[in-house]
């Protein structure tokens, strides 16, 4: 089996995790790496698939307010949310702007959506004289006028901010992360307005395979989804390996975490390798020829391999999750 090539671990295709990590880096938890954030927020383990054509919008089509606040909660933060429907009435706009400005005044950038491209980004400055926000996302570091900010291109004006950073034990963090990972993998995550439109977790593989069998994959959507999942699973494998190394094996819990996470890491590595091959077949952004029978059939084979590996990985994490539910102490000498 080919190993994952060394890569830049400070970049990710999952903008939600990028934005969270960016915000976290301004707080007392700045020691958390992007790998930690990808893992503890569960973003490294997500798969949200459009069952029609593998639509390009699927990876970010989740209830952002719910997921991002739960992510921040996992990492030990009290958070705030604004998501008024568009067109936003002036009094609500003012409150959203005040939320952003208050966060920046406290030294934390605000997480928002579609600053320059339709992905999550950070607002890290404001200027009332010029009526400008300073923002950064994967595409650009620049300014956005207050008026432009008010004209959100999605159907709500989305902002999440960090309220307060709380001490959080490693048990808490891992258990909450596993909860999110397992819930998503088993297709039990709350989808809100996206319910029924996308297929999440392990079932996403079946949806993807079915689209390939119907030779109906959208070129751009298919290769973008591959990019996102490939990137995520590389982080997943790395996260699991790091955790298996960090837990020291000094008691039954520590040893169980090491064993389970070490086992899961191997399976997720296999997933990442399969997606690496898919990525070569369908390079972003043109995406190759996913509708052609030969390419589609080979993709199906790789997706099946990935699914088999990920299923084993999820089983390990699931078992660990139920085990972890019983333990709470930061240190346990036995």
């Amino acid at each position, binding site marked *: 089996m080919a190993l994952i090539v060394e890569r830049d671990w400070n970049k990710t295709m999952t903008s939600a995790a990028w934005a969270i990590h960016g915000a976290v880096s301004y707080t007392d938890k700045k020691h958390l790496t992007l790998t930690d954030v990808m893992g503890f927020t569960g973003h490294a383990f997500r798969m949200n698939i459009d069952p029609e054509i593998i639509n390009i919008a699927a990876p970010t089509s989740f209830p952002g307010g719910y997921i991002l606040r739960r992510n921040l909660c996992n990492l030990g933060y009290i958070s705030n949310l604004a998501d008024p429907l568009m067109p936003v009435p*002036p009094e609500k706009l003012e409150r959203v702007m005040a939320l952003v400005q208050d966060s920046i005044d406290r030294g934390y950038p605000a997480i928002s959506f579609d600053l320059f491209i339709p992905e999550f980004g950070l607002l*890290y400055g404001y200027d009332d004289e010029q009526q400008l926000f300073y923002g950064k996302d994967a595409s650009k570091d620049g300014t956005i006028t207050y008026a432009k900010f008010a004209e959100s291109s999605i159907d709500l004006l989305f902002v999440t901010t960090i309220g307060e950073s709380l001490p959080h034990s490693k048990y808490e963090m891992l258990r909450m992360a596993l909860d999110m990972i397992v819930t998503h993998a088993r297709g039990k995550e709350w989808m809100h307005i996206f319910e029924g439109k996308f297929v999440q977790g392990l079932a996403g593989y079946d949806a993807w395979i079915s689209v390939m069998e119907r030779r109906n994959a959208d070129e751009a959507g298919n290769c973008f989804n591959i990019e996102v999942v490939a990137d995520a699973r590389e982080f997943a494998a790395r996260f699991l390996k790091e955790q298996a190394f960090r837990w020291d094996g000094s008691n039954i819990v520590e040893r169980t975490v090491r064993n389970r996470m070490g086992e899961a890491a191997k399976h997720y590595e296999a997933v990442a390798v399969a997606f690496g091959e898919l990525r070569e077949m369908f390079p972003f952004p043109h995406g190759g020829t996913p509708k052609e029978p030969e390419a589609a059939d080979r993709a199906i084979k790789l997706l099946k391999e990935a699914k088999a590996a990920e299923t084993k990985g999820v089983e390990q994490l699931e078992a660990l999750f139920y085990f972890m539910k019983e333990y709470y102490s930061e240190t346990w000498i036995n």
Partner: protein
Amino acid sequence: MSYGGMEVDVLAPAKASWIEGKEEQAELEKEWVTRAREGDQEAFGELVRMHRAKALGIAGSMTKDAYLAEDIVQEALMKAFMHLSSLSDNSRFAAWLQRIVRNQAYMKLRRGGPYGNERPFESFRSGMAKQACGGVTDPANVDWGDMDSILFHLAGQAYEASIHSANPDVFLMRKETLEGIHMLIRCLSKREREIFEARFFSELPPSEIAAMFGTTTAGIYNSLSRSRTKLQRERIRISIGLYVERRAALGLPRKKILAPPP
């Protein structure tokens, strides 16, 4: 709502006198208002004592600035004293004063302080102030072909009604809505504005408007939809302007830029 211990329900002022033990005080207040209207400064002093704390509370919660609140209440009380004659119902003094305090606070916040250079919609506002003192524009002087003039007249009417009616909130809201529309339609082109007026005032069906303007119903729908978008944008633009001014008035930071994210 409670003003200095006296109960006043804006929606049903008569209710206040039903409340046991309050009746006497309400009567006393009415008496003071009557005497103050006749020029009795001592009676006005009693009214001030009764309502000052509540007025300060309102101004303070709006401006978050104790000194500014003092100024506002002082000016509001002067205004109230000078224009006491325009109060038709002597039992409604508290609600009336409260409205003056609010208006005064809004003006201060919008101007960005007492000597703020920027006074948006200057002519309209000073006109409104004149009306507050002198009453409604004479309908004979209204140019019914001109949107500005009509809205100006309607807003004045609503304001008067708010003072004299038993249900002033509804009228004040109407006045504020009309003022809002007046500000907003400035962003429309001449033709868009004409179409918008036809729809807004005459409530003409789009087919008739289309005939009037020599275009199709689809054209009218397009124009109305474009106007709505423009109006929403303008509404947002204005409210952002006011928001920024208010932040300045409250002494909040004007600018803060953190180090760019990694």
